[in-house]
């Protein structure tokens, strides 16, 4: 089963590079894109992704707030915060909001590994809130 990504970043260049990086894996596809938190929540509901990659600092709602909204809809959704501001403090807040991982924008290479680990080796990822959060 192919993995569907929602990518959220206010910068088109960043989204474009993310697309290229993710699409390098033939099993991965882009289900949707959004340039801010509000739009992300809307696109999330229509695009049914398996994994969300969220920028932290965006106009309006920040990445952590956006993650909270998405997790209200789908509590088991794996979300990766992809940011220039990665730090232990931000990570603490992000994890307590239910975000699975915080990745620095300069660590694209390790990010691919983190995504693979999040998706798990065999189990298909959950797509709605009814499944166990600890999946």
């Amino acid at each position, binding site marked *: 089963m192919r993995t569907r990504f929602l990518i959220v970043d206010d910068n088109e260049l960043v989204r474009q590079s993310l697309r290229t990086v993710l699409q*390098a894996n033939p099993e991965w596809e882009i289900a949707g894109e959004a340039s801010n938190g509000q739009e992300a929540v809307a696109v999330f509901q229509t695009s049914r992704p398996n994994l969300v990659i969220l920028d932290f600092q965006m106009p309006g709602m920040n990445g952590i707030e956006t993650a909270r909204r998405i997790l209200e809809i789908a509590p088991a959704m794996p979300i990766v915060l992809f940011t*220039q501001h990665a730090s232990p*403090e931000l990570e603490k807040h992000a994890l307590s909001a239910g975000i699975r991982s915080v990745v620095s924008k300069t660590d694209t290479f390790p990010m691919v590994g983190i995504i693979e680990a999040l998706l798990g080796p065999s189990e298909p990822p959950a797509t709605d809130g009814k499944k166990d959060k600890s999946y």
Partner: protein
Amino acid sequence: MNEQEKVNILMVDDQPAKLLSYEVILKELNENLIKAHSGREALDLLLKNEIAVVLMDVSMPELDGFELADMIRQHPRFQKTAIIFISAVHLTDVDQLKAYQRGAVDYISVPIVPELLRAKVSVFADLHRKTRQMEVLNRELRSLSARLIAMQDEERRHIARDLHDSVGQLVATLSMNNGLALMQAEKLTPPAGEALRQNTELVKQLSKEIRTISHLLHPPLLDEIGLLPAIKLFADGFAERSGIQVTVELSPELGRLAPKVEISIFRIVQECLTNVYRHSGSKTAAIKIWPSDEKMLTLQVCDQGKGIGVERRVSMSLGTNNGVGLSGMRERVRELGGTLEIQSNGNGTTVTAVIPETTAATVGVS
């Protein structure tokens, strides 16, 4: 009030003839002369006008000069009004002492020497005018400095944001592209692969530099998550850059504060740690924030350095390139309605700011 503006001089005497003679003597000062025939009338006029000098007779029926002076002084608005007593009787040292204890600035005995009375009243009228001018200038200066601080905060926030949105994103994209190329590095010749790996490291360093500059200008966590994580992150970064060990003790029950309070506290912490690094020679610093009684919160930054010597007070109070010094901290705290205290000796310095706990909810920030 400008230099030419007239001030009000109140003359109080129950005898009209005396009032008339004061008027003749003081006329050439070219100020506004106001007459009162009794203590009660004087009080009434005082409440309705701004009076620079009160010239009053000690012996009057009903309310005498001393009683009137007591009543005037009880009113906060008139605590500094110049009162000159005039008396034909009560000339002993005890009487004069009584007058000065009631806040008189002078005690003139009859017969009056016109030139002398004129000169004395003139001095206090000028003093009043200058005091008023000074108060106006002071208020203007304070409001200007508050605006400058707010504008500086706003400007820094803008630059940090621009840095993040433009250069920061370009560097992030560069880094992602490098990452993508690295995934296929085996297809490159060894030197090309090595160059790519080097570039990747350089871009990482570049990103870190930009991040540090942007965070020092305005920490993104401050707006997005709040003061406490922003301070912790700043303290960690400071410790790493300076080699000074920083402990942070922040009361967890503090919620989101008003944006102006959060940025002010953050800037004070930043300024204090800069001072610890530049001046104290201390190997450690401690930051504490806790809610004290009655909706106040206390911020304390301590070090175990050599203290602030007299010669350093001047440069510290003017600040450095990165900050606006102790006077800037004081202005920030004053603007919030709080107090700032600095204790310093050979064993270290402690800066304590007590600030009203204005929460984000109080000022309607969601």
